């Protein structure tokens, strides 16, 4: 079973995403900010990161930047409340494997996650 680490500062959104992903057959771990992400990746060893672009303390972008700099290669999808990748959140110099906007199109998100994790859905 593929494992996904989700980070969002909204409890409600975490619950929503966890429910949808678990229904689709993934094991889900959660984090409420970027700091927690950098701590939990090594402990949970996820197959995919699903990170909110903007979070207090440390954003998903900052966390991913740190992880990439440390040689961490697990695929990552950024979830943004902005409409476009160019709008603020996604820097072009960072290796991002997917960009999903809010409100989340779960059909699209789930098919992207399936491709990135190589899951059989």
């Amino acid at each position, binding site marked *: 079973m593929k494992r996904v680490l989700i980070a969002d500062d*909204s409890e409600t959104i975490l619950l*929503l995403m966890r429910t*949808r992903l678990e229904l689709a057959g993934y094991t889900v771990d959660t984090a409420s900010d970027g700091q927690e992400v950098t701590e939990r990746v090594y402990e949970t060893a996820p197959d995919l990161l699903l990170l909110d672009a903007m979070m207090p303390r440390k954003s998903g972008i900052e966390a991913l930047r740190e992880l990439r700099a440390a040689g961490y290669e697990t695929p990552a999808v950024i979830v943004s409340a902005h*409409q*476009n990748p*160019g709008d603020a959140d996604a820097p072009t110099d960072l290796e991002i494997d997917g960009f999903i906007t809010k*409100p*989340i199109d*779960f059909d699209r998100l789930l098919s992207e996650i399936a491709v990135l994790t190589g899951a059989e859905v």
Partner: protein
Amino acid sequence: MIGVGRFIEKRQDFEDRIARSYQVEMAARVKVAQGVGGIAARQLVGREARHREELRDQISDDTRDTAILVAAGLIAGLTGALLLFSGLIATLRRPLEDLVDAAGRLAAGDLSTRVEVGGLSETATLGAAFNEMASQLEIEASQRELLDRLKDEFVLTASHELRSPLTSVQGFAELLMLERETLTPKQVETVEIILDNCNHLVRLLNDLLDLARSDAGRLSVRLRPTELPPLIDEVVRTMRAQTEGSHQALIEEIDPQLPTVEAEADRIRQILVNLITNAHEYSPEGANIEVKARVIGDEVEVSVTDDGPGIPETQLEHIFERFVRGDAGLTQRVGGTGLGLAISKSLVELHGGTIEVDSTVGSGSSFRFRLPLDGPALRPEAAA
């Protein structure tokens, strides 16, 4: 020549002398009549008459001289006045020309323009008033810029902040629908209404954001080589759920050999969804909607044609302006924001393309957009 004052004096003198001459002549005539003066009295009458003739000639000469003098004086005066005036004009001209130049620069947008204040008090006052006006304009312009920026930030933040709760509402409603077999028909209908309204809110947010960006000149597209046929096909298949609900036929006619174009797939999808949604919402049940894609010259043309009610000519010319929507009678059930076509036009233009519409009342409308095969790079006017 004599002066006017002296002329008047002299004339008085002449008239006295003429009067005296009459008295002398009359006295002489009395003597002649009484026969007491003899030859001497007769001679005196003739002499006085000749004397008066001379006096009168002299007066008319003096009058003429004086008239010439007066005319000459007038001419001299006028010339002096003109000279004085042209001097005045010269001192007025420079500051006025400066003002005209400055007004031109101000009109061209250089709000930092000021004029030198000096010279005659009138032009100095004018210059100071001009500078005051320019300062006021400059202050107002910078306040307007600030307001524009605040407005953009506000729209961006509001749209951003509204997205999270909207994600939850929509997401949990969708969760309910995943278990629709456990719901009653009434509950299904309720959840569908929630989802419809979520979609409408999302569209509204996206449109407002695009529009704010377009106004700020920050709407941009990320162009990549894009295969149009699968993209159009995907949109058509998604839209079919809606058109079939109205028993409308959504017909696809895509040239499978369509070459790759430089485009942002999401934006092309957005334009297509907008055009097909319009055709669907403004056409009656059972209408035909045709989506075509083909190569014309060095462009790809994508068209969405319907056999709906058509658009009156008066609306047609404003159709790509924001908040312009079709007939009020129809908009009752039309869910659009009135921004779709304005945004579609901006987006097509960012791709270096063009968008146009043909419509005949009673027989339908056709919206077509064209994208250049070689991308917008070779079309400098698309750089905006």
